[in-house]
């Protein structure tokens, strides 16, 4: 022939590939979180935005420093560090000093992810590892809540936000109680509508219940998360609290309050459903979610803390390998009664 043959590749099949990548999934998470993030910044002011930026900066910088040179660019490009930093920031109180948020980002990526071997190998949700560290190290700062500033006070950054590292923090005039605090310590409920639209104090991104659900549905629709996990968490929480209400309606919070208060929604849709740290199998997802839901109510109602989502998810993260092991689906054609009689 006149023309030489083209140089042929001999890559084995399949040649076709679903147009879907990890970075696309991460981008979906950022899109899903955008409404609740914007609402949080709107309600809590510029200080909240600075906290989010600080925790993202902490996460990204840590990834940059700790990853080997040849991995850096690709790993940062997939956006998982940004997602971790943002999720951490959204679960921090708005009056937190910025340096703590940054440090939380460092711990999230360093101790939560890289030390395990990087993306995909960590046992615990990185953002929650960072948050657990902050709560243990700075219990006062992590449980001091500020009231919403609203649009008028948008540019007023609280003095506590700007506290220098390891120096005295001035929390003057920022103290306010979250709905869960009110419930736990004063047996005082909060109007449901305020909970749904986020007109309460709390962490930056956890208050706007409806927006969090909206983003979660988007992720479920895009199949970026296993819908069974948030579904089973919400069902378990609602069922357990309904049972408690039946026992004593005066003492225990109702199911709707329980679902919409605190960080349950952000935890259920964005943290518990983190695929890396939750079971792979459908049956496992139900067990995992139910476990999280039950633990949340146990901690909130019977434990010493007003909120228990973080610990509930971390505890179930630890159980994930075990759950996966015992919930492997039945392989096609196995475990059937064979036509020759008897069980295989």
């Amino acid at each position, binding site marked *: 022939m006149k023309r030489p043959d083209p140089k042929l*590749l001999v*890559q084995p099949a399949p040649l*076709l590939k*679903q147009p879907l990548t990890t970075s696309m999934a991460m981008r979906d998470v950022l899109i899903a979180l955008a409404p609740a993030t914007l609402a949080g910044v709107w309600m809590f002011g510029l200080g909240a935005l600075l906290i989010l930026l600080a925790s993202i900066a902490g996460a990204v910088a840590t990834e940059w420093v700790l990853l080997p040179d040849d991995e850096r660019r690709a790993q940062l490009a997939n956006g998982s560090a940004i997602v971790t930093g943002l999720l951490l920031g959204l679960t921090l109180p708005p009056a937190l000093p910025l340096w703590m948020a940054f440090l939380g980002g460092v711990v999230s990526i360093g101790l939560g992810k890289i030390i395990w071997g990087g993306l995909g190998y960590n046992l615990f949700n990185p953002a929650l590892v960072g948050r657990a560290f902050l709560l243990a190290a700075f219990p006062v700062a992590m449980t001091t809540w500020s009231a919403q500033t609203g649009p008028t006070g948008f540019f007023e950054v609280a003095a506590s936000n700007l506290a220098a590292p390891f120096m005295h923090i001035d929390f003057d005039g920022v103290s306010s109680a979250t709905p869960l605090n009110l419930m736990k310590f004063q047996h005082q409920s909060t109007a449901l509508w305020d909970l749904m639209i986020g007109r309460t104090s709390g962490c930056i991104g956890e208050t706007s219940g409806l927006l969090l659900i909206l983003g979660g549905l988007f992720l479920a629709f895009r199949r970026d998360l296993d819908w069974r996990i948030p579904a089973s968490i919400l069902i378990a929480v609602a069922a357990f609290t309904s049972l408690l209400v039946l026992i004593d309606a005066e003492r225990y919070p109702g199911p709707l309050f329980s679902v919409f208060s605190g960080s349950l929604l952000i935890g259920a849709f964005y943290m518990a459903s983190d695929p890396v740290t939750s079971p792979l199998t459908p049956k496992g997802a139900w067990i995992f979610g139910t476990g999280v839901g039950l633990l949340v109510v146990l901690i909130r109602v019977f434990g010493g803390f007003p909120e228990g989502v973080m610990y509930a998810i971390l505890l179930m993260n630890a159980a994930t390998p075990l759950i996966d092991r015992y919930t492997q689906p039945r392989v096609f054609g196995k475990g059937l009664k*064979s*036509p*020759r009689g008897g069980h295989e």
Partner: protein
Amino acid sequence: MIALSTLFRRSFAHGVHPPDHKALTADLPTQRIPFVSHYVLPLNQHLGAPCKPVVETGQRVERGQLIGQPTAFVSTSLHSPVTGWVRDIGRRRGPDGDYRESIEIEADPFSTQRLAPSPRPDWRGMSVEALVEALPHSGIVGLGGAALPAQVKYSLRKGVRIRHLIANGAECEPYLTNDHRVMVERPETLLRGIEILQTLLGAEETIIGIEQNKPEAIATLRAHIRPDQRVRVVPLRVKYPQGDSKMMIRALLNREVPAGLHAADIGIIMNNVSTIAAIADWLEDGIPYIDRLVTVSGPGIARPANLIVPLGTPVREVLRFCGGLTEDTREVIMGGPMMGTPVASLDAPILKTSSGVLAFTAAETARPREYPCIRCGRCVEACPYFLNPSRLARLAKARMYDEMKRMNLSECVECGSCTYSCPSGIPIVQLIRTAKNNLRGRKRAVKT
């Protein structure tokens, strides 16, 4: 109403939905490519033992003449696709680059290439056992891809009664349209084959399973079925790998073939529609398996086509007939894009299993950067056999092959749905294949 019925069409669980790309060739009638000067016929174009040459170098052979005979039960015959002379018997490179013992035939340029009909048994009043004896002489193998010699499926375990014959017209591999063309162009032959096999087996019913992206095939066959025939056409949802025999049975009869058993063990025999048509050609007209229907398609092909190609024709000649490869072609695949074999050299011959010759450009062959598994579970939801591909890939990377065996490695049919669905770009099925090859090699090493 139609949309609703589409949604609830029968299928199996899990699987993936690659774009089918069949529009490129679905409506193109098959055409015969001209005879070329040289043909290479490997002796092992089927599963099992290679056949043994019964001709000598220099000998004249007629088109349709026996040139290789089966050497074992799982083996089959080989016939000359052309009239000409045996030029050599020796090692030639197959499509995958491996050297295979082959017969090379030079065509007689002045021959009319008329087919000399082979002696064939009279199928009327034949028993299934006699069919099993007869089929190895036809050279027919399972044309859906496995290339299992046709008689093997019909050798039934004692006491097994076949209730259903299934004609597999799923053709779930993207791009391929040759089964489709058989159903559209040769419905009488296919239904004749079904009638013969159904009668011989004493089966109660034959079901033709066709994915509903082939409405012309469904309509044509329905129009040709006589009312007295117990034959049904069942449209299936479009999903890969519907053509896998166990998935097809699950989709059509909602039955699960137990692992380690064959369909026949639960009273079902399934053949590809092309295989059934080939059996009819042989039993009715004495035509051995010498011509293969090949879909030539893909973005790297100038003029896609459905071709009747004599076995042993070099891929180069097939491509030349279709206007050659485009400049940007990067890879040629024999078979389908999901399970086919990359072609190492264009001199490789068309085999009994070559359902397609597909050419792909950089857009399809570019592999995404591989990221670590984030356990998203998409492969788990894709695997039609309910394996855990994510875990198998991790174990394969760690070379923990024995642990993979415990995770039911042997049930994997290598359909590639896992690799197709992985957002991290992990070559899951490729890793699994490597593990299987390794285990096979180890077994051989222990034996010798």
